[in-house]
Protein backbone atom coordinates (compact mmCIF):
# COMPACT_ATOMS: atom_id res chain seq x y z
CA UNK A 1 0.00 0.00 0.00
CA UNK A 2 2.91 2.27 0.75
CA UNK A 3 4.28 2.28 -2.75
CA UNK A 4 0.83 2.95 -4.19
CA UNK A 5 0.40 5.79 -1.75
CA UNK A 6 3.76 7.18 -2.79
CA UNK A 7 2.90 6.79 -6.45
CA UNK A 8 -0.26 8.81 -6.01
CA UNK A 9 1.61 11.56 -4.20
CA UNK A 10 4.28 11.71 -6.90
CA UNK A 11 1.66 11.87 -9.65
CA UNK A 12 -0.28 14.54 -7.81
CA UNK A 13 2.83 16.64 -7.37
CA UNK A 14 3.71 16.22 -11.03
CA UNK A 15 0.25 17.37 -12.09
CA UNK A 16 0.40 20.41 -9.83
CA UNK A 17 3.90 21.28 -11.04
CA UNK A 18 2.92 20.82 -14.67
CA UNK A 19 -0.09 23.05 -14.14
CA UNK A 20 2.01 25.71 -12.47
CA UNK A 21 4.66 25.71 -15.16
CA UNK A 22 2.54 25.33 -18.24
CA UNK A 23 -0.15 27.76 -17.19
CA UNK A 24 1.96 30.92 -17.54
CA UNK A 25 1.03 31.10 -21.17
CA UNK A 26 1.65 34.26 -23.13
CA UNK A 27 -2.04 35.04 -22.91
CA UNK A 28 -1.41 38.34 -21.13
CA UNK A 29 1.14 41.12 -21.06
CA UNK A 30 2.58 41.96 -17.69
CA UNK A 31 3.40 45.45 -16.50
CA UNK A 32 5.20 45.79 -13.17
CA UNK A 33 4.69 49.08 -11.38
CA UNK A 34 6.82 49.39 -8.25
CA UNK A 35 7.61 52.11 -5.75
CA UNK A 36 6.18 54.68 -3.38
CA UNK A 37 3.46 53.47 -1.05
CA UNK A 38 1.86 56.92 -1.27
CA UNK A 39 1.36 56.61 -5.01
CA UNK A 40 0.43 52.92 -4.81
CA UNK A 41 -3.30 53.20 -3.92
CA UNK A 42 -3.85 55.65 -6.78
CA UNK A 43 -2.08 53.44 -9.30
CA UNK A 44 -3.98 50.40 -8.04
CA UNK A 45 -7.20 52.24 -8.84
CA UNK A 46 -5.90 53.35 -12.23
CA UNK A 47 -4.69 49.85 -13.06
CA UNK A 48 -7.98 48.30 -12.04
CA UNK A 49 -9.95 50.60 -14.33
CA UNK A 50 -7.46 50.31 -17.17
CA UNK A 51 -7.28 46.52 -17.15
CA UNK A 52 -11.06 46.15 -17.05
CA UNK A 53 -11.06 47.50 -20.59
CA UNK A 54 -7.75 45.85 -21.60
CA UNK A 55 -8.08 42.21 -20.68
CA UNK A 56 -4.84 41.21 -22.38
CA UNK A 57 -2.80 43.35 -19.97
CA UNK A 58 -2.19 42.62 -16.31
CA UNK A 59 -0.69 45.30 -14.11
CA UNK A 60 1.06 44.31 -10.89
CA UNK A 61 1.28 47.28 -8.56
CA UNK A 62 3.66 46.93 -5.66
CA UNK A 63 4.70 49.19 -2.82
CA UNK A 64 8.12 49.21 -1.25
CA UNK A 65 8.93 52.90 -1.33
CA UNK A 66 10.22 55.56 -3.67
CA UNK A 67 13.78 54.24 -3.41
CA UNK A 68 12.64 50.77 -4.38
CA UNK A 69 10.86 52.31 -7.37
CA UNK A 70 13.97 54.16 -8.51
CA UNK A 71 16.28 51.18 -7.96
CA UNK A 72 14.11 48.55 -9.56
CA UNK A 73 13.32 50.70 -12.59
CA UNK A 74 17.06 51.20 -13.12
CA UNK A 75 17.67 47.46 -12.71
CA UNK A 76 14.96 46.79 -15.24
CA UNK A 77 12.92 44.77 -12.73
CA UNK A 78 10.01 47.18 -12.97
CA UNK A 79 8.52 48.64 -16.13
CA UNK A 80 7.33 51.73 -14.31
CA UNK A 81 8.67 53.15 -11.05
CA UNK A 82 6.62 55.30 -8.69
CA UNK A 83 8.15 58.10 -6.67
CA UNK A 84 6.55 60.62 -4.36
CA UNK A 85 9.60 62.86 -4.17
CA UNK A 86 11.78 64.82 -6.54
CA UNK A 87 14.74 62.75 -7.65
CA UNK A 88 18.30 63.82 -6.93
CA UNK A 89 20.55 64.26 -9.94
CA UNK A 90 22.32 60.91 -9.36
CA UNK A 91 18.99 59.15 -8.92
CA UNK A 92 17.68 60.76 -12.11
CA UNK A 93 20.42 59.29 -14.27
CA UNK A 94 19.06 57.14 -17.14
CA UNK A 95 15.46 57.67 -16.02
CA UNK A 96 12.64 59.61 -17.62
CA UNK A 97 10.25 61.30 -15.19
CA UNK A 98 6.57 61.72 -15.89
CA UNK A 99 4.68 63.77 -13.31
CA UNK A 100 1.12 62.51 -13.01
CA UNK A 101 -0.11 64.64 -10.16
CA UNK A 102 0.65 66.53 -6.99
CA UNK A 103 -0.55 66.14 -3.47
CA UNK A 104 -0.63 68.19 -0.30
CA UNK A 105 1.11 67.28 2.92
CA UNK A 106 -1.04 68.04 5.93
CA UNK A 107 0.30 68.90 9.38
CA UNK A 108 -1.97 67.00 11.72
CA UNK A 109 -2.60 67.12 15.46
CA UNK A 110 -5.05 65.37 17.74
CA UNK A 111 -8.65 66.54 17.72
CA UNK A 112 -8.22 67.34 21.43
CA UNK A 113 -5.55 69.92 20.61
CA UNK A 114 -6.77 73.53 20.53
CA UNK A 115 -4.07 74.75 18.11
CA UNK A 116 -5.46 75.78 14.72
CA UNK A 117 -2.67 77.54 12.90
CA UNK A 118 1.11 77.38 12.90
CA UNK A 119 3.69 79.25 10.89
CA UNK A 120 6.31 77.40 8.86
CA UNK A 121 8.89 78.70 11.34
CA UNK A 122 6.95 77.26 14.30
CA UNK A 123 6.52 73.90 12.57
CA UNK A 124 10.22 73.84 11.83
CA UNK A 125 11.11 74.56 15.46
CA UNK A 126 8.67 71.95 16.74
CA UNK A 127 10.18 69.29 14.49
CA UNK A 128 13.80 70.22 15.17
CA UNK A 129 13.19 70.23 18.90
CA UNK A 130 13.51 73.96 19.71
CA UNK A 131 9.87 74.07 20.78
CA UNK A 132 8.94 71.20 23.09
CA UNK A 133 5.72 72.32 24.74
CA UNK A 134 2.41 73.26 23.20
CA UNK A 135 2.14 76.34 25.44
CA UNK A 136 5.06 77.92 23.54
CA UNK A 137 2.85 78.15 20.46
CA UNK A 138 -0.28 79.19 22.32
CA UNK A 139 -1.64 75.81 23.31
CA UNK A 140 -2.09 73.97 26.59
CA UNK A 141 0.80 73.10 28.86
CA UNK A 142 1.55 69.74 27.30
CA UNK A 143 4.68 68.12 26.01
CA UNK A 144 4.89 67.83 22.22
CA UNK A 145 5.38 64.34 20.78
CA UNK A 146 6.85 64.61 17.31
CA UNK A 147 5.96 61.80 14.92
CA UNK A 148 7.78 61.46 11.66
CA UNK A 149 8.23 59.06 8.78
CA UNK A 150 11.32 56.96 8.15
CA UNK A 151 14.37 58.22 6.26
CA UNK A 152 13.75 58.15 2.56
CA UNK A 153 9.98 58.36 2.67
CA UNK A 154 8.81 60.68 -0.09
CA UNK A 155 6.48 62.48 2.30
CA UNK A 156 9.32 63.04 4.73
CA UNK A 157 11.81 64.29 2.20
CA UNK A 158 9.26 66.68 0.71
CA UNK A 159 8.41 67.90 4.21
CA UNK A 160 12.09 68.35 5.04
CA UNK A 161 12.92 70.29 1.91
CA UNK A 162 9.97 72.67 2.31
CA UNK A 163 9.91 73.15 6.08
CA UNK A 164 13.15 72.19 7.72
CA UNK A 165 15.64 74.38 5.79
CA UNK A 166 19.04 73.25 7.00
CA UNK A 167 17.87 71.97 10.41
CA UNK A 168 17.06 68.34 11.08
CA UNK A 169 14.08 66.55 12.52
CA UNK A 170 15.03 65.80 16.10
CA UNK A 171 16.42 62.35 16.82
CA UNK A 172 13.90 61.55 19.52
CA UNK A 173 10.95 61.81 17.12
CA UNK A 174 8.94 58.61 16.88
CA UNK A 175 9.33 57.00 13.47
CA UNK A 176 6.27 55.46 11.84
CA UNK A 177 6.51 53.65 8.56
CA UNK A 178 3.35 54.85 6.84
CA UNK A 179 1.04 57.80 6.58
CA UNK A 180 -1.78 55.78 8.14
CA UNK A 181 0.24 54.79 11.18
CA UNK A 182 1.35 58.39 11.67
CA UNK A 183 -2.31 59.33 11.56
CA UNK A 184 -3.26 56.67 14.09
CA UNK A 185 -0.48 57.68 16.46
CA UNK A 186 -1.51 61.33 16.22
CA UNK A 187 -5.19 60.49 16.69
CA UNK A 188 -4.56 58.53 19.88
CA UNK A 189 -2.06 60.92 21.48
CA UNK A 190 -3.30 64.41 22.49
CA UNK A 191 0.27 65.75 22.55
CA UNK A 192 1.29 64.50 19.13
CA UNK A 193 2.05 66.27 15.86
CA UNK A 194 2.80 64.60 12.55
CA UNK A 195 2.54 65.06 8.81
CA UNK A 196 0.26 62.97 6.60
CA UNK A 197 -0.69 63.05 2.96
CA UNK A 198 -3.77 65.02 1.97
CA UNK A 199 -5.48 62.04 0.35
CA UNK A 200 -5.39 60.14 3.64
CA UNK A 201 -6.94 62.90 5.73
CA UNK A 202 -10.16 62.25 7.62
CA UNK A 203 -11.86 63.24 10.86
CA UNK A 204 -9.55 61.16 13.04
CA UNK A 205 -7.04 63.99 13.20
CA UNK A 206 -7.16 67.76 12.91
CA UNK A 207 -5.42 69.53 10.00
CA UNK A 208 -3.44 72.64 10.93
CA UNK A 209 -3.45 75.61 8.61
CA UNK A 210 0.00 76.82 7.67
CA UNK A 211 0.65 80.56 7.73
CA UNK A 212 -3.11 81.00 7.63
CA UNK A 213 -3.71 78.78 4.60
CA UNK A 214 -5.64 75.61 5.25
CA UNK A 215 -4.99 72.65 2.95
CA UNK A 216 -7.69 72.03 0.35
CA UNK A 217 -7.83 70.95 -3.27
CA UNK A 218 -8.10 74.59 -4.27
CA UNK A 219 -5.16 75.87 -2.24
CA UNK A 220 -3.00 72.96 -3.37
CA UNK A 221 -3.89 73.49 -7.05
CA UNK A 222 -3.01 77.18 -7.00
CA UNK A 223 0.05 76.44 -4.83
CA UNK A 224 -1.08 78.85 -2.11
CA UNK A 225 -0.64 75.95 0.28
CA UNK A 226 3.11 75.37 0.08
CA UNK A 227 3.39 71.90 1.59
CA UNK A 228 3.04 69.69 -1.47
CA UNK A 229 4.93 67.06 -3.40
CA UNK A 230 4.73 65.49 -6.83
CA UNK A 231 3.65 61.99 -7.84
CA UNK A 232 6.12 60.82 -10.46
CA UNK A 233 6.31 57.85 -12.79
CA UNK A 234 9.77 56.68 -13.80
CA UNK A 235 10.70 54.93 -17.00
CA UNK A 236 14.00 53.65 -18.22
CA UNK A 237 14.56 54.02 -21.94
CA UNK A 238 11.64 53.50 -24.26
CA UNK A 239 8.51 52.14 -22.53
CA UNK A 240 7.00 48.93 -23.91
CA UNK A 241 3.97 49.28 -26.17
CA UNK A 242 1.65 48.30 -23.33
CA UNK A 243 3.25 50.54 -20.73
CA UNK A 244 2.93 53.40 -23.21
CA UNK A 245 -0.73 52.60 -23.68
CA UNK A 246 -1.25 52.67 -19.90
CA UNK A 247 0.63 55.95 -19.55
CA UNK A 248 -1.33 57.74 -22.25
CA UNK A 249 -4.58 56.40 -20.77
CA UNK A 250 -3.65 57.94 -17.41
CA UNK A 251 -3.35 61.34 -19.06
CA UNK A 252 -6.69 60.86 -20.82
CA UNK A 253 -9.93 62.27 -19.36
CA UNK A 254 -10.89 58.85 -17.97
CA UNK A 255 -7.58 58.59 -16.09
CA UNK A 256 -7.68 62.19 -14.89
CA UNK A 257 -11.15 61.59 -13.50
CA UNK A 258 -9.86 58.75 -11.32
CA UNK A 259 -6.86 60.78 -10.15
CA UNK A 260 -9.19 63.56 -9.06
CA UNK A 261 -11.42 61.13 -7.23
CA UNK A 262 -8.42 60.05 -5.14
CA UNK A 263 -7.91 63.65 -4.01
CA UNK A 264 -4.77 64.08 -6.09
CA UNK A 265 -4.35 67.12 -8.33
CA UNK A 266 -3.69 65.92 -11.89
CA UNK A 267 -0.81 67.52 -13.78
CA UNK A 268 -1.06 67.91 -17.53
Amino acid at each position, binding site marked *: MNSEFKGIIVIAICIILAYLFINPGASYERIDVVGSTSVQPLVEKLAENFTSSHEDIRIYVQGGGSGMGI*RSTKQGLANIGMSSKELSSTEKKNLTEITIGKEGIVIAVSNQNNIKDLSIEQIKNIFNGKITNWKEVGGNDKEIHVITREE*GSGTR*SAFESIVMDDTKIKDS*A*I*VQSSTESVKQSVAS*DPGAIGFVSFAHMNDDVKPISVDGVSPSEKTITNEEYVLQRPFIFLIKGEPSKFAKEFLSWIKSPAGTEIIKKEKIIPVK
Partner: protein
Amino acid sequence: MEKNRLSEFLIEKSLVITAIFSIIIILLIVLFILMEGFPAFEDYGFFRFLFGMNWAPSDGEFGVFAMIIGSIYVTLLSLIMAVPLSLLCAIFMAEVAPNSIRRILKPVIETLSGIPSVVYGFFGLIVLVPIIRTNFGGTGFSMFTAALILTVMVLPTIITISQDSLRAVPHEYREASFGLGATNWQTIRHVIFPAALPGIITSIILGMGRAIGETLAAIMIAGNVVQIPGSIFDPVRTLTANIALEMGYATGLHYNALFGTAIVLFLIIIILLLIANYIQHKYKVDVGGGYL
Protein backbone atom coordinates in the same frame (compact mmCIF):
# COMPACT_ATOMS: atom_id res chain seq x y z
CA MET B 1 24.94 -6.16 -11.61
CA GLU B 2 27.22 -3.57 -13.30
CA LYS B 3 24.28 -1.33 -13.96
CA ASN B 4 23.15 -1.71 -10.39
CA ARG B 5 26.52 -0.68 -9.08
CA LEU B 6 26.59 2.38 -11.30
CA SER B 7 23.16 3.56 -10.20
CA GLU B 8 24.06 2.91 -6.55
CA PHE B 9 27.13 5.06 -7.08
CA LEU B 10 25.16 7.86 -8.72
CA ILE B 11 22.54 7.80 -6.01
CA GLU B 12 25.13 8.01 -3.29
CA LYS B 13 26.81 10.97 -4.99
CA SER B 14 23.57 12.85 -5.44
CA LEU B 15 22.72 12.23 -1.80
CA VAL B 16 26.07 13.77 -0.86
CA ILE B 17 25.02 16.88 -2.72
CA THR B 18 21.77 17.11 -0.76
CA ALA B 19 23.79 16.66 2.44
CA ILE B 20 26.11 19.53 1.74
CA PHE B 21 23.37 21.63 0.18
CA SER B 22 22.78 23.65 3.33
CA ILE B 23 26.46 24.53 3.44
CA ILE B 24 26.33 25.63 -0.20
CA ILE B 25 23.34 27.82 0.58
CA ILE B 26 25.08 29.36 3.58
CA LEU B 27 28.09 30.17 1.43
CA LEU B 28 25.80 31.74 -1.17
CA ILE B 29 24.05 33.81 1.49
CA VAL B 30 27.35 34.99 2.94
CA LEU B 31 28.69 35.75 -0.53
CA PHE B 32 25.70 37.79 -1.64
CA ILE B 33 25.26 39.68 1.61
CA LEU B 34 28.99 40.50 1.67
CA MET B 35 29.01 41.50 -1.98
CA GLU B 36 26.16 43.94 -1.51
CA GLY B 37 27.29 45.15 1.90
CA PHE B 38 30.98 45.54 1.20
CA PRO B 39 30.79 48.90 -0.64
CA ALA B 40 29.34 50.44 2.51
CA PHE B 41 32.31 49.30 4.56
CA GLU B 42 34.72 50.37 1.85
CA ASP B 43 33.27 53.84 1.39
CA TYR B 44 32.32 54.61 4.94
CA GLY B 45 34.93 52.63 6.85
CA PHE B 46 34.16 49.44 8.72
CA PHE B 47 34.81 50.77 12.21
CA ARG B 48 33.07 54.03 11.50
CA PHE B 49 30.11 51.97 10.31
CA LEU B 50 30.19 49.70 13.35
CA PHE B 51 30.80 52.33 16.04
CA GLY B 52 29.33 55.40 14.38
CA MET B 53 26.59 57.03 16.45
CA ASN B 54 25.00 58.84 13.57
CA TRP B 55 22.56 57.18 11.16
CA ALA B 56 21.31 59.70 8.62
CA PRO B 57 21.33 58.17 5.15
CA SER B 58 20.24 61.40 3.45
CA ASP B 59 23.38 63.06 4.83
CA GLY B 60 25.54 60.07 4.02
CA GLU B 61 25.97 59.03 7.66
CA PHE B 62 25.80 55.28 8.30
CA GLY B 63 26.72 54.50 11.91
CA VAL B 64 24.86 51.50 13.29
CA PHE B 65 26.16 51.53 16.85
CA ALA B 66 22.93 52.83 18.38
CA MET B 67 21.06 50.01 16.69
CA ILE B 68 23.50 47.36 17.88
CA ILE B 69 22.93 48.68 21.40
CA GLY B 70 19.19 48.82 20.71
CA SER B 71 19.12 45.18 19.63
CA ILE B 72 21.18 44.08 22.62
CA TYR B 73 19.12 46.08 25.13
CA VAL B 74 15.81 44.79 23.85
CA THR B 75 17.13 41.25 23.84
CA LEU B 76 18.58 41.41 27.35
CA LEU B 77 15.45 43.02 28.73
CA SER B 78 13.30 40.29 27.22
CA LEU B 79 15.63 37.60 28.57
CA ILE B 80 15.43 39.08 32.08
CA MET B 81 11.71 38.47 31.92
CA ALA B 82 11.72 35.28 29.89
CA VAL B 83 14.44 33.28 31.62
CA PRO B 84 12.90 32.96 35.10
CA LEU B 85 9.45 32.24 33.75
CA SER B 86 10.59 29.72 31.18
CA LEU B 87 12.99 27.92 33.51
CA LEU B 88 10.30 27.58 36.16
CA CYS B 89 7.95 26.35 33.51
CA ALA B 90 10.51 23.90 32.13
CA ILE B 91 11.28 22.49 35.58
CA PHE B 92 7.58 22.30 36.28
CA MET B 93 7.00 20.31 33.12
CA ALA B 94 10.03 18.09 33.43
CA GLU B 95 10.06 17.35 37.14
CA VAL B 96 6.97 18.41 39.00
CA ALA B 97 3.80 18.40 36.95
CA PRO B 98 1.65 15.30 36.71
CA ASN B 99 1.21 13.84 33.24
CA SER B 100 -2.23 15.35 32.76
CA ILE B 101 -0.95 18.91 33.17
CA ARG B 102 2.08 18.15 31.03
CA ARG B 103 -0.27 17.09 28.29
CA ILE B 104 -1.93 20.50 28.42
CA LEU B 105 1.29 22.52 28.58
CA LYS B 106 3.09 20.79 25.72
CA PRO B 107 0.65 21.85 22.97
CA VAL B 108 0.34 25.27 24.59
CA ILE B 109 4.06 25.83 24.14
CA GLU B 110 4.05 24.39 20.64
CA THR B 111 1.25 26.75 19.70
CA LEU B 112 3.08 29.70 21.24
CA SER B 113 6.06 28.91 19.05
CA GLY B 114 3.86 28.48 16.01
CA ILE B 115 2.08 31.83 16.18
CA PRO B 116 3.48 34.02 13.39
CA SER B 117 5.72 36.83 14.55
CA VAL B 118 3.63 39.32 12.64
CA VAL B 119 0.62 38.28 14.72
CA TYR B 120 2.63 38.89 17.89
CA GLY B 121 3.63 42.27 16.50
CA PHE B 122 0.05 43.08 15.63
CA PHE B 123 -1.11 42.09 19.13
CA GLY B 124 1.60 44.27 20.63
CA LEU B 125 0.68 47.21 18.44
CA ILE B 126 -3.03 47.02 19.13
CA VAL B 127 -3.07 45.91 22.77
CA LEU B 128 0.25 46.56 24.51
CA VAL B 129 1.24 49.92 23.04
CA PRO B 130 -1.92 51.71 24.27
CA ILE B 131 -1.62 50.03 27.68
CA ILE B 132 1.98 51.18 28.08
CA ARG B 133 1.07 54.66 26.87
CA THR B 134 -1.70 55.09 29.44
CA ASN B 135 0.26 53.60 32.31
CA PHE B 136 3.81 54.79 31.74
CA GLY B 137 3.41 57.85 29.53
CA GLY B 138 5.28 58.57 26.34
CA THR B 139 3.98 57.19 23.09
CA GLY B 140 3.81 53.56 24.16
CA PHE B 141 6.29 52.56 21.49
CA SER B 142 9.23 51.54 23.61
CA MET B 143 12.00 49.12 24.33
CA PHE B 144 9.92 47.71 27.16
CA THR B 145 6.88 47.08 24.98
CA ALA B 146 9.01 45.30 22.41
CA ALA B 147 10.77 43.30 25.12
CA LEU B 148 7.41 42.14 26.49
CA ILE B 149 6.41 40.66 23.14
CA LEU B 150 9.86 39.18 22.57
CA THR B 151 9.59 37.55 25.99
CA VAL B 152 6.57 35.62 24.83
CA MET B 153 8.32 34.78 21.56
CA VAL B 154 11.43 33.29 23.18
CA LEU B 155 9.52 31.40 25.89
CA PRO B 156 8.94 28.31 23.74
CA THR B 157 12.58 28.12 22.64
CA ILE B 158 13.96 28.26 26.17
CA ILE B 159 11.28 26.02 27.66
CA THR B 160 11.57 23.28 25.05
CA ILE B 161 15.35 23.03 25.05
CA SER B 162 15.94 23.40 28.78
CA GLN B 163 13.20 20.86 29.39
CA ASP B 164 15.03 18.43 27.13
CA SER B 165 18.24 18.90 29.04
CA LEU B 166 16.47 18.50 32.40
CA ARG B 167 14.96 15.25 31.15
CA ALA B 168 18.37 14.07 30.01
CA VAL B 169 19.70 14.06 33.58
CA PRO B 170 20.09 10.36 34.46
CA HIS B 171 17.40 8.92 36.66
CA GLU B 172 19.91 7.58 39.18
CA TYR B 173 20.75 11.15 40.25
CA ARG B 174 17.20 11.69 41.36
CA GLU B 175 16.92 8.38 43.13
CA ALA B 176 20.19 8.92 44.95
CA SER B 177 19.05 12.33 46.11
CA PHE B 178 15.65 11.06 47.23
CA GLY B 179 17.46 8.22 48.97
CA LEU B 180 19.32 10.79 51.06
CA GLY B 181 15.97 12.12 52.22
CA ALA B 182 15.94 15.23 50.03
CA THR B 183 12.65 16.75 48.99
CA ASN B 184 11.72 17.13 45.34
CA TRP B 185 12.70 20.81 45.36
CA GLN B 186 16.03 20.11 47.06
CA THR B 187 16.74 17.48 44.45
CA ILE B 188 15.90 19.86 41.63
CA ARG B 189 17.91 22.68 43.08
CA HIS B 190 21.04 20.85 44.15
CA VAL B 191 21.18 17.92 41.78
CA ILE B 192 19.15 18.19 38.61
CA PHE B 193 19.48 21.88 37.88
CA PRO B 194 23.30 21.93 38.16
CA ALA B 195 23.54 18.80 36.03
CA ALA B 196 21.33 20.33 33.35
CA LEU B 197 22.97 23.76 33.48
CA PRO B 198 25.00 23.59 30.25
CA GLY B 199 21.87 22.66 28.31
CA ILE B 200 19.93 25.41 30.02
CA ILE B 201 22.59 27.96 29.11
CA THR B 202 22.44 26.72 25.53
CA SER B 203 18.69 27.22 25.54
CA ILE B 204 19.10 30.79 26.76
CA ILE B 205 21.67 31.56 24.06
CA LEU B 206 19.39 30.15 21.40
CA GLY B 207 16.51 32.19 22.81
CA MET B 208 18.77 35.22 22.62
CA GLY B 209 19.43 34.50 18.95
CA ARG B 210 15.73 34.34 18.27
CA ALA B 211 15.11 37.66 20.03
CA ILE B 212 17.93 39.44 18.20
CA GLY B 213 16.76 38.12 14.85
CA GLU B 214 13.12 39.08 15.30
CA THR B 215 12.13 41.74 12.82
CA LEU B 216 8.49 42.55 12.35
CA ALA B 217 7.39 42.52 15.96
CA ALA B 218 10.26 44.89 16.72
CA ILE B 219 9.36 47.28 13.90
CA MET B 220 5.74 47.37 14.88
CA ILE B 221 6.21 48.22 18.55
CA ALA B 222 9.72 49.44 19.37
CA GLY B 223 9.24 52.97 17.96
CA ASN B 224 12.23 52.77 15.61
CA VAL B 225 14.07 55.82 16.91
CA VAL B 226 17.81 55.64 16.28
CA GLN B 227 19.13 56.42 19.74
CA ILE B 228 20.74 54.80 22.73
CA PRO B 229 17.76 54.63 25.07
CA GLY B 230 17.97 56.44 28.39
CA SER B 231 15.21 54.42 30.02
CA ILE B 232 13.33 51.26 29.20
CA PHE B 233 10.35 53.37 28.17
CA ASP B 234 12.33 55.08 25.42
CA PRO B 235 11.83 53.95 21.84
CA VAL B 236 14.69 52.13 20.10
CA ARG B 237 15.50 50.80 16.67
CA THR B 238 16.91 47.32 16.29
CA LEU B 239 19.27 46.18 13.53
CA THR B 240 16.56 44.03 12.00
CA ALA B 241 14.04 46.87 12.03
CA ASN B 242 16.54 49.14 10.33
CA ILE B 243 16.81 46.77 7.38
CA ALA B 244 13.12 46.14 6.90
CA LEU B 245 12.13 49.74 7.50
CA GLU B 246 14.47 51.41 5.02
CA MET B 247 15.00 48.79 2.35
CA GLY B 248 12.15 50.21 0.31
CA TYR B 249 13.71 53.66 0.19
CA ALA B 250 17.34 52.88 -0.13
CA THR B 251 19.31 53.71 -3.23
CA GLY B 252 23.07 53.78 -3.74
CA LEU B 253 25.26 53.56 -0.68
CA HIS B 254 22.23 53.51 1.63
CA TYR B 255 21.21 50.21 0.01
CA ASN B 256 24.68 48.81 0.62
CA ALA B 257 24.62 50.08 4.20
CA LEU B 258 21.47 48.05 4.86
CA PHE B 259 23.22 44.91 3.66
CA GLY B 260 26.08 46.01 5.92
CA THR B 261 23.57 46.04 8.78
CA ALA B 262 22.66 42.48 7.85
CA ILE B 263 26.34 41.49 8.00
CA VAL B 264 26.57 42.87 11.54
CA LEU B 265 23.43 40.95 12.47
CA PHE B 266 24.80 37.81 10.86
CA LEU B 267 28.06 38.14 12.80
CA ILE B 268 26.22 38.48 16.09
CA ILE B 269 24.20 35.34 15.33
CA ILE B 270 27.31 33.41 14.31
CA ILE B 271 29.05 34.39 17.55
CA LEU B 272 26.04 33.21 19.57
CA LEU B 273 25.94 30.00 17.58
CA LEU B 274 29.61 29.34 18.17
CA ILE B 275 29.19 29.88 21.91
CA ALA B 276 26.22 27.50 21.94
CA ASN B 277 28.21 24.96 19.94
CA TYR B 278 31.18 25.30 22.26
CA ILE B 279 29.04 24.66 25.30
CA GLN B 280 27.37 21.70 23.64
CA HIS B 281 30.72 20.33 22.64
CA LYS B 282 32.42 20.91 25.95
CA TYR B 283 29.67 19.51 28.13
CA LYS B 284 28.41 16.98 25.58
CA VAL B 285 24.95 18.46 25.70
CA ASP B 286 22.57 16.81 23.33
CA VAL B 287 19.61 19.05 22.97
CA GLY B 288 17.55 17.31 20.34
CA GLY B 289 15.87 20.09 18.44
CA GLY B 290 18.18 22.79 19.67
CA TYR B 291 17.57 25.40 17.04
CA LEU B 292 17.15 29.11 17.35
